[in-house]
């Protein structure tokens, strides 16, 4: 499946667009990281990509057909959204929470049946959470909750998953565990759009990076091309350097001594 945005703009208030003329494309097996400061339009971009918001201009299309021409159900069978926070009001079990992902496959009065429960178990097994299926979702740790939400997206059958800051509030080990699962699923053919405040993660896990600056795509391409001292300065208003460690891994390090005025 190919998800494509062409010249997408979006404004909550007329004349004040938070997204301006953003274009990108995503094929199976790709992981796209979206970087940008708070308020740069990352979340709005995800909402446009999922079809929850309609761009004020430009189009988002799935397999060449504009999102608006797909029904909400067809869209949900292909594109899943993994929210940053999901605080349920009630104490559903893990299996019950993941089962909600089957909604786009079930009619109005239908109840989930054996195939749906099997899809839930498969999804939980894929993210390594099958053992927790009868535990209460609200009692899980942040990292476990993220994994369960990924499983919900898998149970949904979504080919493309949009994740809003999945690593926020997680310690480094859990961040890498989540992103490792994402990378593994991408190898299996799924595609991901991940918003992040961690340029390092983008270097490690992204196939492509989009750097948003005030709603505009400042740079877009492979991590090495899109993430430069220049684009990071534009994104965050401070100086960074990209350093290379002994083992060849790269890291983005802020240059504390010389913050720019921008």
């Amino acid at each position, binding site marked *: 499946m190919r998800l494509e945005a062409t010249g997408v703009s979006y404004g909550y208030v007329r004349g004040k667009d938070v997204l301006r003329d953003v274009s990108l494309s995503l094929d199976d097996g790709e992981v796209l990281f979206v970087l940008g400061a708070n308020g740069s339009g990352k979340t709005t971009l995800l*909402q446009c990509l999922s079809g929850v918001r309609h761009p004020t201009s430009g189009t988002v299309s799935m397999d060449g057909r504009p999102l608006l021409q797909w029904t909400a*159900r067809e869209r*949900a*069978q292909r594109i899943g959204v993994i929210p940053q926070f999901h605080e349920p009001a*009630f104490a559903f079990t893990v299996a*019950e929470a993941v089962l*909600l992902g089957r*909604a*786009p496959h079930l009619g109005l009065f239908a109840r989930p049946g054996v195939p749906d429960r099997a899809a839930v178990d498969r999804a939980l097994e894929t993210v390594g959470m099958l053992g927790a299926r009868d535990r209460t979702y609200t009692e899980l740790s942040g990292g476990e909750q993220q994994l369960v939400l990924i499983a919900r997206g898998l149970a949904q059958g979504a080919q493309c998953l949009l994740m809003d800051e999945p690593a926020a509030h997680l310690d480094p080990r859990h961040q890498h565990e989540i992103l490792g699962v994402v990378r593994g699923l991408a190898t299996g053919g799924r595609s991901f759009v991940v918003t992040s405040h961690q340029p390092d993660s983008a270097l490690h896990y992204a196939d492509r990076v989009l750097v948003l600056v005030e709603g505009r795509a400042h740079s877009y391409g492979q991590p090495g091309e899109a993430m430069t001292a220049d684009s990071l300065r534009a994104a965050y208003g401070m100086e960074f350097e990209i350093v290379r460690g002994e083992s060849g891994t790269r890291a983005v390090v802020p240059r504390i001594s010389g913050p720019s005025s921008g």
Partner: protein
Amino acid sequence: MTARRGRRVLWILIPTAAALFLVSLAVGRYGVSPIEAFRSLFGGGESDILRALILRVRLPRTIAAACVGVNLAVSGVALQGLFRNPLVDGRVLGVSSGAAFGAALALSLAGGAAVVQGMSFLFAVAAVGLVVWIGWRFGTAPLILVVGGIAVSALFDALVGLVKYVADPLSRLPAITYWLLGGLGASRWETLLQVAVITGIGLSFFLLFSWRLNLLTLPDAEAASLGLHARPMRMAVIGAATVLIAASVSISGMIGWIGLVVPHVARAWVGADHRRLIPAAAVLGAAALIGLDTIARTALPSEIPLGILTGLIGIPAFLLLFLRLVRARGAER
């Protein structure tokens, strides 16, 4: 909380409710054994008088109690899920206040039982209609509906006050006051029929819709990302819950706390999944109201208004549950 445990709870609840049903038929000013009551139901029993008493007076009243219990409990579950808030019941939408105004108006004009029932039903639906209209114009986010509900409730409460103020203080005012206290003493087959039908249809709807209720506990944006159009679904649930509550209020008057406490207890027993919660709350609600109404009409020489009894028992139960919830979550908040 597995499905098996939920089913086990139901297997305990259903016989309990059935036993309470029989006990309720048996006890009263003229008490017999439950077995005798059971035989009377099928044309046997001691005497014609006993049979008439059970079939014409106690049976409709007990069925009315069951229906009212089912309606309040099931709609409470649905509304709590919808508002993602375990602390709401029908009052949040103005149902009770609307019903009270309708009934007070009918009583002040000396309307018969059918008129009172009809008017209270009508105004309960009208009150929620106002709230829904607000929601349709400004969004169905829980906060907007709750604020709309509070405003509409207050409006109808003021109107009830106005009706009471102008009502004839010797004949009409006492009737209005007693009605507002709530009770099932007036239950007869004639007034029961519509309510029983509504209970049957409403309960079936919520049983069929029970899994979707799980989805409606999601925030709108998440529901949308799962391909759902939350707004019409929310409206359908509000509509069904309103009709259930209005139907029960129209025969029982104001009966508080059942719609709040029963869903809590049921949730503690069978978990949050509405596929188990709806049937469990329905049976528990029926059992609770049959039990309470039996106490209301037998505990003292004269009948205790049911609404007072549910308050006296429901409020401590509610506080207990709420404080337990606070303690369980206290560390996080």
